[in-house]
């Protein structure tokens, strides 16, 4: 693993399939991430684009293997993370173990230590609950 001082940049991570039924063009996802990086002084590394096949996270796994050489990842939205909570926790753990940061550009959230996991999961769990809740009251 490279020392933290020699790691450069944050890998952008965007998607090619709808997220919770909503589609955002890849060019717009990139714009949001570039803007976030600029505002937060992060070096932007070219996007990894998640594959379109349902349930596939191969590109996310690819970024995980890259973490020891970079400063972290900026995803377009934290809702791009895997649907299954245990898989999300594995992802969080990879960031913590490598001393890297996970940023979510749309929500302007960052995960740097174990305490941040709660904020990410609160957003996820509420969203999942809302998806199951009655739509008409």
């Amino acid at each position: 693993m490279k020392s933290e001082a020699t790691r450069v940049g944050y890998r952008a991570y965007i998607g090619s399939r709808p997220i919770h039924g909503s589609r955002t063009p890849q060019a717009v996802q990139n714009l949001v991430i570039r803007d976030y990086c600029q505002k937060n002084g992060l070096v932007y590394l070219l996007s990894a684009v998640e594959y379109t096949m349902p349930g596939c996270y191969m590109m996310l796994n690819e970024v995980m293997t890259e973490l020891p050489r970079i400063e972290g990842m900026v995803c377009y939205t934290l809702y791009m993370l895997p649907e299954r909570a245990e898989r999300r926790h594995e992802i969080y753990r990879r960031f913590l173990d490598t001393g890297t940061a996970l940023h979510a550009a749309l929500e302007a959230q960052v995960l740097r230590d174990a305490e941040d996991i709660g904020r990410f999961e609160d957003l996820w769990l509420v969203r999942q609950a809302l998806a199951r809740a009655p739509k008409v009251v």
Partner: protein
Amino acid sequence: MTGGFLSKDDAALGEAFLRDGYVIRTVEDRPALDRIQARMAALAAEALGLDASNEPKSFLDGIHRHVTPENLNPFRVKMIAGINAEPWFRRAYYGLAAQALAAIAGNELAMQRRANLSIQLPEDESSLLPAHTDTWSGDSPFEVVVWLPLVDCRSTKSMFILPPEANARAAAGLARYDGKGVEALYRDHESEAKFLTVDYGQFLLFDQNLIHGNRINREKTTRWTFNCRFKGLFTPYADKKLGEFFEPITLRPATRLGLAYKLPDGFGG
């Protein structure tokens, strides 16, 4: 397959494309290519505060003497914006491969609105494009890519592609690599990957449904290549939509008539 309706040349090109997954041809408009290359060199010199070069090819080949991996992406983005702002650029780009595109994809086409540019410095690990197909990332399987080098590209300075037969085997087993990553997929098929030699003055037209990508450029000079997607205008679109990503470029008169036509109405029933 087409019952002899295609010309002999078109049929031969189509057969080669289906067999290999790509064709490499001499550009159809050399002055247009030289104009693109000269403009890119001028844009690069301007961005770097250097004097314009009389030898654009060797200047572009040696750009790693002026650009570091850390400032490569802002530089690349500036180059893309600069060349795409030229009103003549997309027409010139299309004209480099117009006949081949007509033979492979049809004569009524949609073209990517902004051509992409890849600049790969020697030994730079930060600009890698792992093994992928564009279709997996949201492109329609009906698209083809015109890949255009501004310098001579070979070996790791070029791109690799899996031939159709090897690709079919690799794609069928893709789910096995979920968790292992696409680098493992590449390693398992590395011996079958073909690095394409495409010199300045040629273009590569390839099937983006085939697994392709690049590796660390181990050559001594910098890679400069454009890539731009084309598809039959009325073929299905995927995540890259008409309007936001593609634009019609060769609408034909009969289609214009058809698009404008309205059946007479006002009947009482």
